[in-house]
């Protein structure tokens, strides 16, 4: 955190100055470790074992926060009797289908209910099967069975205890390489720091997400934080430290295939398809806040299709495209390499350097008819047709690449108005300071004018399929000779308005499902409340209280801490004076506090819904997690996840050890791309690749380098690609500090300088020594400073929930000296893959239901 989010880390130091204990868990000793109270080196890819060990410790030593857990979580809820745990089935949950490597979720549900709709994640799992449901799910949530004593063998609490029973300090040591004494110090520190007067926080970044079990890493932390009573309270929470200025915004208003704005799922191809009704039945919840979904979808259709969206036409919902599977980034690039994608827009992104298996990306780009790149400079993705290892090696000739490439220079943030959403969900407006130079334009300008042209091209069409583009509302006011569209007008549409008079709505509670309101992103509704650009608010910190609610605007409804009803006890009183945040005002009969209460504002803590209640009325006064169908924090996730209701330790796709817990080696539902241009190592103990590789960022550079490798100041600070190795590994392999090394995987080979350092240390797992090689991934083939890209080494393989790649734990080899010939599996595979990787069987350990791997498929060339 001190390395990659230095200014946020100031607040960690502020907490330390006030007495907080700082624990840093990282394979490397970094600037964060240097000022932490405790640095815990860990084997990359073993965090669920580590966190699961803490859960085990907290349960075994009764360190959990009883009042919080009993009232605010689903610990007491009884799970369906068909449910079987990984402890019962050797690393699988019930419902696994080895033919498809997928789970069915039927047995993961609560006993006595008709389905449970998750707050986030995969809501559409029923819709995806084409079942064509006619009813809402989860209307019987209030009939679920619970055991408030937490003793029932099938209650969540007891299932949790059983699930983590073997995650002992000894197992943690054998799996993570963390000595027992160090582990116990962490577990005891966290366990002690819980209760009415104490909270603890977790901060993480992509070191937790870029795994084939990435989502479950976060889930493990969530379970622990619920047990310790650390969600929805000041000083608590799980902080995702996101790495790009508006990456949170890119998720909220998603340029992501599976979402519409505001975490509304994209519609799926289903039969029978009854339009919007079908979509609502597949995605809305019978109880809880997601019962409101129809209002948000109809308002979105009104915002997009304007007057053409009418009740008779089902709001033009059917004009939206449907999904029929995974259309995520890596899937798209693999299909590109197979010639299925013809045109590609890359806007402010550099996938050939920043994404996995760069050679496979370039193979995809070579198969395109046309490519559009928008950036500040000619990045690698724009130059792929003339600057790349395979071109240098003569395997690919520039003249043979038929792809047309358009490069559009981009305007900087100082040359355009707009809002960024930071990692705390806070929108901040940036003002245009000057005009963009030359042909530089904002992406807003580009998309707006592209849209204008396309609307003109399709204006005369009578085809049904062109209705959406014809109906699309696109009349944003423009400014000046370059006809720059007004970002504020777009923000106004995102906020939403009343159709009759065009006035901004004050918030999402005012949205309707009858077409009387339009709203581009329901969770952002309120950002233009009263006709005021709320993200542009800049009341100095010195002139307001510590929550600073008048600086920028946070979604939803300017709430700074989500689920903050949990900052008060079940009676609605602050848990303690020190931890006072939001509470029930008995006189005014309202929730109040320093923040905007995240609850039905006049619902008293004593409210209990009548048994027949549905929708928001079904949330009781002690249900702080209002987006969940049961209003509770989910220790057990009965739906929403592809790979299991509890996090389970699986080894990475490529590991140096066998899974010490289960015969099942890897996440059985992980996404693989079995292709000859994306070869994998053996799942464990591949003799060719005996070391762990992990990647990371440096303070002085920014991801794929498009915003840093061209700048003199930053390039001077970190001029060259390097790898970090321990003294022991350096001695073993003859690596010299400042000398060169060659690092190899089945995907490719790179060279870089060597940094021999105590910052990386060998770990001991049951007497075995495991070495980790650290690789920053900022460099590539063009720019002011250049170097081999680490990402060329990493395969396409992903978490099944979110399709995010596993780049934080894989295997590879290192040798001293410069031996790279720039070979890549995608273009030079025969030589590099020799000898062929040992593929199935067995890819995973021979378990009861070993997942067999499909034979590699030769890509079409």
């Amino acid at each position, binding site marked *: 955190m001190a390395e990659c989010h*230095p200014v946020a880390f*100031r607040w960690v130091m502020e907490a330390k100055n006030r007495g907080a204990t700082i624990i840093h868990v990282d394979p490397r000793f970094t600037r964060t470790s240097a000022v932490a109270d405790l640095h815990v080196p860990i084997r990359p890819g073993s965090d669920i074992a580590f966190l699961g060990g803490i859960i085990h410790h907290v349960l075994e030593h009764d360190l959990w926060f009883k009042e919080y857990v009993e009232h605010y979580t689903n610990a007491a809820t009884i799970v369906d009797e068909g449910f079987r745990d990984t402890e019962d089935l050797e690393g699988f949950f019930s419902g696994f289908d080895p033919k498809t490597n997928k789970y069915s979720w039927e047995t993961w549900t609560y006993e006595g209910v008709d389905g449970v709709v998750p707050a986030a994640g995969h809501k559409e799992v029923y819709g995806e099967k*084409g079942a064509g449901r006619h009813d809402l799910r989860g209307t019987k949530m209030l009939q679920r069975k619970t055991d408030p004593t937490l003793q029932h063998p099938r209650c969540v609490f007891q299932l949790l205890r059983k699930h983590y029973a073997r995650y002992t300090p000894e197992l943690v040591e054998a799996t993570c390489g963390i000595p027992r004494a160090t582990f116990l110090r962490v577990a005891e520190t966290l366990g002690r720091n819980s209760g009415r007067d104490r909270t603890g926080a977790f901060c993480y970044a992509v070191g937790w997400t870029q795994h084939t079990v990435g989502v479950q890493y976060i889930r493990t932390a969530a379970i622990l934080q619920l047990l310790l009573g650390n969600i929805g309270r000041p000083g608590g929470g799980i902080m995702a430290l996101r*790495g790009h*200025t*508006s990456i*949170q*915004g890119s998720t909220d*208003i*998603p*340029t992501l*295939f599976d979402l519409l704005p505001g975490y509304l799922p994209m519609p799926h*191809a289903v039969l029978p398809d009854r339009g919007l009704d079908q979509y609502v039945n597949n995605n809305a919840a019978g109880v809880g806040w997601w019962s409101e979904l129809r209002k948000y979808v109809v308002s979105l259709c009104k915002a997009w299709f304007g007057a053409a969206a009418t009740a008779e036409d089902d709001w033009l919902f*059917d*004009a939206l*495209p*449907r*999904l*029929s599977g995974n*259309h995520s*980034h890596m899937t798209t690039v693999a299909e590109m390499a197979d010639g299925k*994608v013809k045109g590609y827009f*890359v*806007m402010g*992104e550099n996938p050939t350097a920043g994404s996995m298996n760069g050679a496979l990306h370039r193979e995809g780009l070579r198969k395109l008819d*046309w490519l559009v790149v928008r950036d500040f*400079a*000619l990045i690698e993705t724009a130059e792929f*047709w003339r600057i790349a290892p395979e071109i240098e090696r003569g395997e690919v000739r520039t*003249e*043979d*690449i*038929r*792809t047309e490439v*358009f*490069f559009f*220079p981009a305007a*900087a943030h100082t*040359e355009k108005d*707009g809002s960024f959403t*930071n*990692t705390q969900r806070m929108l901040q407006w*940036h003002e245009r300071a*000057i005009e963009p130079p030359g*042909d*530089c334009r904002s992406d807003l300008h580009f*998309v707006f004018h*592209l849209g204008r*042209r*396309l609307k003109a091209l399709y204006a005369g069409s009578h085809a049904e399929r062109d209705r959406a*583009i014809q*109906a*699309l509302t696109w009349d944003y006011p423009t400014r000046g000779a370059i006809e720059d569209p007004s970002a504020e007008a*777009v923000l106004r549409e*995102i906020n939403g308005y009343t159709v009759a008079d065009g006035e901004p709505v004050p918030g999402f509670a005012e949205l309707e499902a009858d077409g009387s309101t339009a709203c581009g992103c329901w969770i952002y509704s309120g950002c233009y409340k009263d006709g005021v650009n709320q993200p*542009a608010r800049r009341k100095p910190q010195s002139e307001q209280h510590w929550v600073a609610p008048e600086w920028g605007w946070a979604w939803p409804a300017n709430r700074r801490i989500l689920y903050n009803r949990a900052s008060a006890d079940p009676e609605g009183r602050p848990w303690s004076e020190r931890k006072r945040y939001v509470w029930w005002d008995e006189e005014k009969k309202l929730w109040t506090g320093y923040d905007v209460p995240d609850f039905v504002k006049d619902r008293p803590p004593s409210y209990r819904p009548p048994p027949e209640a549905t929708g928001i009325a079904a949330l009781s006064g002690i249900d702080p997690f209002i987006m969940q169908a049961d209003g509770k924090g989910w220790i057990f996730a009965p739906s929403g996840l592809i790979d299991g209701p509890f996090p389970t330790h699986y080894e990475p796709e490529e590991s140096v050890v066998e899974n010490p817990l289960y015969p099942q080696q890897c996440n059985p539902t992980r996404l693989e791309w079995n292709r000859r241009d994306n070869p994998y190592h053996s799942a464990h103990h591949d003799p060719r690749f005996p070391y762990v590789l992990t990647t990371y960022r440096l303070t002085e550079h920014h991801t794929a380098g*498009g915003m840093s490798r*061209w*700048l003199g100041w*930053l390039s001077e600070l970190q001029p060259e690609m390097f790898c970090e190795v321990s003294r022991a590994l350096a001695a073993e392999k003859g690596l010299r500090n400042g000398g060169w090394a060659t690092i190899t995987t089945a995907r490719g080979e790179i060279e870089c300088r060597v940094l021999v350092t105590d910052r990386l240390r060998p770990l001991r797992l049951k007497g075995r020594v495991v070495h980790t090689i650290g690789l920053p991934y900022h460099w590539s083939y063009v720019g002011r400073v250049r170097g081999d890209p680490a990402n060329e080494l990493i395969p396409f393989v992903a978490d099944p929930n979110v399709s995010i790649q596993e780049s934080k734990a894989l295997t590879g080899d290192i040798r001293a000296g410069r031996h790279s010939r720039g070979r890549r599996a995608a273009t030079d595979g025969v030589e590099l893959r020799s000898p062929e990787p040992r593929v199935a069987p067995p890819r995973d350990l021979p378990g009861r239901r070993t997942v067999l791997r499909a034979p590699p498929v030769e890509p079409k060339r």
Partner: protein
Amino acid sequence: MAKVPILSEWPVLRQLRAGDASGLGATAASERTRTLAPRTASADRVARSVCPYCAVGCGQLVYVKDGKIIDLEGDPDSPVSQGCLCPKGAATFQLVTGAHRMEHVLYRRPGGTAWERIPLDRALDMVAERVKRTRDETWQERIEEPGAEHEGALVRRTLGIAHLGGATLDNEENYLIKKLFSALGVVQVENQARI
């Protein structure tokens, strides 16, 4: 030739007058030092901005003079950053004013070995034509593969066009991208947020 100093400005006289016998106090300052001011003081205006690198969201102040950015500093009013910027944030000035920035649209024709400069409007026309052509050629109204899981189901899309955006795009930009591409039936819309 250097200007002959006025007698009364002789250092020794100034020191005596100010009682600064050691000459280490204010009298040591030259006229130039006394009239120095930060270049931010000469700005015509200051724009409120936000750091474009990581997601912490540090406040930035952009100082503008004669239509040019003359400096960029941390915003002390920000409750997030209290005026601080990290090495990357502090390099923002170079990011937005540096010579690395391309200012012209470039085009590489199929099989071409060099970039060619083309006008912005023409490039936009060309891209729009290609989007239309590709979309029309690759349109998929329903799933037609026999035996597919959703055979016959409505999809109304093209899998012939894809998009990948960076996560330094503004919310408003992402909104228009999602809106336009969805209306065109493009579903392969992705972002750094996936990575």
